[in-house]
């Protein structure tokens, strides 16, 4: 993990992630003020608008930096070095994912803390921390899995965007059948429930939704582990 943290600092990945989250929250605010013409932005509106930005534009925003952090090791021909220090495809991948997620988690916490302090409103802090973290973890896992399979960053970003657009279209066609592919999507059933929770005094989501999110993330992790299982040789070949 130490190596990956060091790399994320020297490659400025941590700075780019920080800038992305600043942009995400600013966009959340300015969409309300600029497009919706809201004159008095309440914390509930601000949080929900930022959450909407994260779910609707998050994959586009974060795909570059996530793909870069993984694909760079292929283009730099570093895979044999990872083998040398005792890593395999699983430890290589999960350490990178863990570093990206921890850095994102720190920025999410910081962002929510600052906004909550500005409004003196911490009523939905824990729920928002959970939701934002789940949304970002989903992106890191999906884009990460695609990146580990793709030989270069452009292909990784391209495939990630195609995946994202396909999932949005499928959910729009039938959220009953395809809802599981993109649970956070605005066209899905959970989205309005989250809006209602944020605008009410009800502090948290229903246990069904929380369970569904956890189940969704676990499913991605399982699919990811299966993909990695069958990519061991490909990992070495792409790194040579």
């Amino acid at each position: 993990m130490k190596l990956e943290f060091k790399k994320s600092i020297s490659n400025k990945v941590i700075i780019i992630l920080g800038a992305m989250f600043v942009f995400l929250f600013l966009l959340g605010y300015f969409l309300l003020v600029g497009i919706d013409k809201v004159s008095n932005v309440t914390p509930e509106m601000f949080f929900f608008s930022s959450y909407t930005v994260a779910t609707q534009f998050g994959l586009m925003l974060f795909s570059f930096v996530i793909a870069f952090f993984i694909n760079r090791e292929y283009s730099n021909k570093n895979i044999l070095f990872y083998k040398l220090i005792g890593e395999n495809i699983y430890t290589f991948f999960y350490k990178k994912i863990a570093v990206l997620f921890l850095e994102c988690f720190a920025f999410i916490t910081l962002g929510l803390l600052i906004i909550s302090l500005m409004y003196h409103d911490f009523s939905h802090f824990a729920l928002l921390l959970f939701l934002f973290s789940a949304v970002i973890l989903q992106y890191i896992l999906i884009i990460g899995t695609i990146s580990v399979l793709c030989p270069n960053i452009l292909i990784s970003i391209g495939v990630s965007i195609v995946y994202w657009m396909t999932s949005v279209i499928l959910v729009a066609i039938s959220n009953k059948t395809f809802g599981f592919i993109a649970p956070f999507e605005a066209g899905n059933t959970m989205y309005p429930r989250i809006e209602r929770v944020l605008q009410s005094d009800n502090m948290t989501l229903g246990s069904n939704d929380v369970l569904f999110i956890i189940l969704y993330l676990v499913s991605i992790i399982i699919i990811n582990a299966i993909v990695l299982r069958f990519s061991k040789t490909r990992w070495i070949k792409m790194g040579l």
Partner: protein
Amino acid sequence: MNIANYTLKVKGKTLLQDTDLHFSSGKINHVVGKNGVGKSQLAKDFLLNNSKRIGRDIRQNVSLISSSSNIPNDVSKDFLLHFMSKKFDAEMIDKIAHLLNLDNIDGKVLIKNLSDGQKQKLKLLSFLLEDKNIIVLDEITNSLDKKTVIEIHGFLNKYIQENPEKIIINITHDLSDLKAIEGDYYIFNHQEIQQYHSVDKLIEVYINE
């Protein structure tokens, strides 16, 4: 190391056909060949086994040091050595670092900002720490300055003397390697690897090929 009837095909092109690979321990086995004959593919095959002729005992006992195996360039020498000392024997690190004269490399500078020669020395140090018995060097002196090439030649001479159990295969098109480091001499010739006992004869064949 002996591999009989070795054939290597990459993307439908036959690079080596029914040739015998025989490399000795305790000396540098130089393999020369013109660009495009398949030198680097041979080097990679010791790990990837595209030929299906490289046994598991060989694959698991090979260190490949080539342009396909880099060290992270987004850390500094100090960080790399400290990191490696947690994974490998610190005494061995000091010994190889001393032989490679790494002291004159600025420890705080990111590796990507070092010269090619300095990067190559750090790469040699890192991959030799694996302490595998078969070491495949693929064009390791390519595009380096003369001083660094001489230092690497000196290092390899000392290293093989101190580690006579190792098999070092030096794949190169730099003929100065052959004169500077004594060993066995092989050439890629008509889809075979042929051994020559005289450096001069091999150079003659190489130039007239």
